[in-house]
Structures are given as C-alpha cells and as structure tokens.
C-alpha cells in the first residue's frame, strides 16, 4: 500500500492488555490545572521503568468539570490493578495535593473502584472532613491555601497499551515534523494518550538484550546509523525513524488514533521526506491486540 508516496508496510503493531483510570484535575484557572496535570503525568512514559504510562487526555471547560472550574483530564495505564492504584495514589499525593488551588475528581465510572483521595485524607491529620454528595464520597483536606477537595475513589477499567507506528523519513527534522503533525491530530481523539515526551519516542526498543540484566534494548533494526552492521529494516535513503506509542481505553480508540495519525503523516507525503510507515511487533507473541496498518488505513 502506498499513500501519497508513503509506503505502508504490511505489518501490525502489537499491543497488550492494561488497567487504566481517568482523573480530572481542576484549579483556579487552566494554567494551574495544567501544571498539576503535567506534574502528575511526568516520568510516566513507559511501564518498563516508570511503573505506569500516563498522559494528558484533554483540557476541560468549566461546564465539563464537577466543580465548575477549568480542568484537565488525565489517563493513567499500568500492567495491573495494584500497580495502577499505587501509582495513582503516589502521584495524586505528590503532584495534585501539593499543587495550588487544585481539586481532584474521578473521571471514569466502573464497578472496580480504586483509591483516589481515600488515603490522601490522612494528610489532614484528623482535621479532614468527609462529604457524601450525590452518592459520591469526597474528602476535604485542610491545606495552607485553603482546602484540597478530592473524590475518594475513581474507576479502574480494562484498557490496551502499546499501540504504535513508526515514521521512517529521509531526515531527522522531517521525521519529527511528521510526528508532530500526527500528534496534533491524535490529541483530538478521546480515550487515548501518547505517553512519550511530546507524544513521540525516538528510542524504540526490542525485547531482550545482550546484557542479561536488561529486558529491553535499542531496536537496532530501525537504527539508521547501524544500517551497515546489523540486520537492518531500513533502506539506504532512511536517515531517521521515530515512533508514536498509543495507550487507549479500548482497541477501537487506538484504531482511531492510529488512523488519524498515519493519515496526517501521509498527508505530508514523500515530498516532505516521509518514506515509510511501519510498526513494532514481536511476531504476535507478546500481546493479543494486533493493529494491522493497511487494514486501519483501508
């Protein structure tokens, strides 16, 4: 398949099941809600070393938030429920509780509830106040700028992590420009995040390493500087490869995000130095979710 001069590989991205949750952070204004959200989703690019993958889903207008203030919706993904709960609580405690004027609310309903502010309340040292409003429990924790209001729990849902595609370009600036265009479109899709810095990862990995202590290492088949000395997957004209990784609440959400992202890349086309779109997979052995690039773009 070739779109606007860009070759779409007959391959698939391989993704795996994860657990996810959504939280809503509000503040006096969007600036401070965003600062808190950025802190909470920081150092959360990959479960390999961060414990979770997290990102900002979108900003929310005052009409969309529980307390009528500007807000930001964030999504957090982890490999299991326990890990997710731990990451959520730690991050909420260090990044939202601490952030001026912030409040924290559940962003998703589920039969499985995980603590949001349920345990953060103990920071109140006995001065915390519980309020049951409309069937939901909230905690009011006295802090130095007033009160930190938080919902006690949020929902945990099944999700999918690791959807991806690779952009293969003639130069590094062209690869980055294509990825930026893709990310801009993908951020409009609900229920997904692209957890890496700016949504783009330049250090795609393969499973395993020559070093026993490492479970993952550089994806040498897509490293342009190794074209001559490894079993490469790159043609001579490829000088730079970048990857976009997508976590979503469902396979369909990732499908949509990959589609609009790849379409944005293809819209730039071969004239902008974009040569191929490929994807990372492990022969279908790692994850049950397969995203076939050509089917998505068909």
């Amino acid at each position, binding site marked *: 398949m070739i779109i606007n001069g860009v070759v779409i590989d007959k391959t698939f991205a391989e993704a795996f099941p994860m657990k996810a949750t959504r939280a809503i952070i509000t503040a006096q204004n969007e600036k401070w809600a965003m600062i808190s959200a950025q802190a909470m989703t920081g150092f959360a690019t990959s479960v390999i070393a961060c414990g979770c993958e997290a990102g900002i889903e979108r900003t929310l207008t005052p009409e969309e938030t*529980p307390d009528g203030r500007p807000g930001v919706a964030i999504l957090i993904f982890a490999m299991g429920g326990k890990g997710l709960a731990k990451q959520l609580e730690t991050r909420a405690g260090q990044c939202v509780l601490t952030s001026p004027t912030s409040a924290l609310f559940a962003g998703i309903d589920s039969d499985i509830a995980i603590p949001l502010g349920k345990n953060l309340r103990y920071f109140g040292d006995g*001065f915390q106040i519980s*309020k*049951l409003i409309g069937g939901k429990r*909230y905690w*009011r924790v006295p802090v130095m700028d*007033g*009160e930190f*209001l938080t919902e006690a729990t949020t929902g945990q849902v099944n999700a999918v992590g690791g959807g991806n595609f690779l952009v293969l370009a003639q130069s590094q600036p062209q690869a980055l420009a294509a990825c930026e265009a893709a990310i801009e479109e993908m951020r409009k899709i609900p229920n997904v995040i692209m957890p890496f810095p700016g949504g783009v990862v330049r250090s795609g990995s393969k499973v395993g390493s020559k070093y026993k202590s490492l479970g993952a290492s550089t994806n040498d088949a897509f490293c342009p500087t190794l074209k001559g000395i490894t079993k490469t997957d790159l043609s001579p004209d490829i000088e730079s490869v970048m990857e976009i990784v997508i976590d979503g609440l469902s396979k369909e959400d990732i499908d949509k995000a990959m589609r609009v992202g790849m379409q944005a890349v293809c819209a730039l086309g071969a004239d902008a130095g974009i040569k191929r779109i490929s994807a990372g997979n492990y022969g279908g052995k790692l994850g049950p979710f397969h995203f076939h690039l050509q089917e998505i773009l068909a």
Partner: protein
Amino acid sequence: MSALTLTLKSHPAQRVDMSPLTCNKLKDLTLAEIAAITLQNGKAKIRVDELFAISGEDTQNLLIKNSFEKLDFIGKELDGGTMTVEGDVGAYCAIGMKTGAITVNGNAGIFAACEMKKGFLTINGNAGDFLGGALPGNKMGMKGGTVLVKGNAGERVGDHLRRGVILIEGNAGDYCGSRMTAGTIAVMGQVGNHLGYAMRRGTLLLWNQPKIPATFNDCGTHTLAFLPLLFASFKSLNSKFADSAAAFNRVQRFGGDMAEMGRGEVLIKI
C-alpha cells in the same frame, strides 16, 4: 394502575400506629388482605377498613388522605415505593426508612426521619422536634438520605445525626445540630439558641447570621470548593435549594463544639 388510596373516615381519639402500612409490607397483598390488617389504636386494635376507605390497587404508590396529627409511624422502615400523605402526620414519620420516597403535604410531628437510613422525605409544612434525630438513648440519628422541610423545624434538628442531608427552607429551633456526629444540615431561615450543641463533626450551613455559642471559634472567611458540588446536587429538587440564586461558596467558618471534639463546622453565607 392507580395509587392505593387510604382515606381516613374519621379522626380517632387515640393515636394510631401506621407502621404496617408501607409499600414493601403491602406488596403482593390483595385489597381484602390489606383491609383485614389490624392497626394499634391506643390500647385497641382496629382493622384498616374500619379506619380508612380503600381504593386503587398500586401498593407501590400509596396515598393516605385526610391524615391528621395522631397517625404515627407513617412510612416506618419503608423499603422502596412512594408514599404521599395529604394532611398532617404524627410522630416518627419515616423512622428507619431504608429506600423510597415519602411526601407529607402537611406538618410532621416529633422524630420525623428518626434514624432514617436512606431515601427521601419531603415535608411541605413544618416539622416537629428531633427531626432526623436518634431515639432517646440511641447514639446514631439519621444515617443517610435526604430530608427536605419547606416550612420550619422544631428543636434539636439532627440530634446525633450520623450521615445524610437535612434541608430546611424556613427556620430551625434551638439546639439545631446538637450532638451531630457527621452529615449536613442547611437552614435558609433563622436558627435558635445553642446552635451545634455538643457537635462532634458535620456541617451546619446557614444563610443568616446565628447566635454563635461561646464554644465555637471563628476560623475566618473562605471560598470552599465543595459547596458548588453540594448545591449542584440540590438542582433536581423542587425547592428553594435548587435555585442557583440561593447557592454560594463564600462563607464565614466557625469550628466547634470545642467543648466536644470540635471537628464540626458552622458555615455562614457572606
């Protein structure tokens, strides 16, 4: 199906225990069986059909007409269904209610919503003393649900209140929120003396400046984030509390009762 309607034929001299007549207890009973239920009337027992004219058949939608202040225990431990009362009710209306809704189109006597667990009680007139309170000797009053009073409430509103919301559009008497353990009482009118007496935790939300007891300390003026959520939860009510003009988030906060554990609060609109 039309509502099962019990129309009081005459006003008996003695009080009547109405607790057998709730939607959940009448479910699956025929009209004949309902008519044969006996009610305690003073020292005597009296059949339902001696006291009431019975019409309609929907036991989950019960209407009591011509009610007066000697019909006690209306809606006791109601567990689902809707009860509407035309006229006044006696003591203990909605005591121990589990779920469902009761509307009183009249005044309620003492101990309305006493130890209520869940559900919704609307009193379109006035409420007597110990609204949402605990039975004498018990430590926990209302444990959940919502009570809306469109008129005034008597003394000791929310005595030993444990959870739930009591909304009073009119005035509340002395000792409002006494011995509260938690929960919320909102009063749009005036409150009497000894507000929050021996209050442990919980919130008294007031639209007018009360007499603040000496055992409550001023914590200053604040904008509280939970108040918009609380008012938003009142939006669906047929009440002044649903009016967005009644909502506020700036308050003067008093903490107390410092003679007790002192974790309660009186929030006054500013």
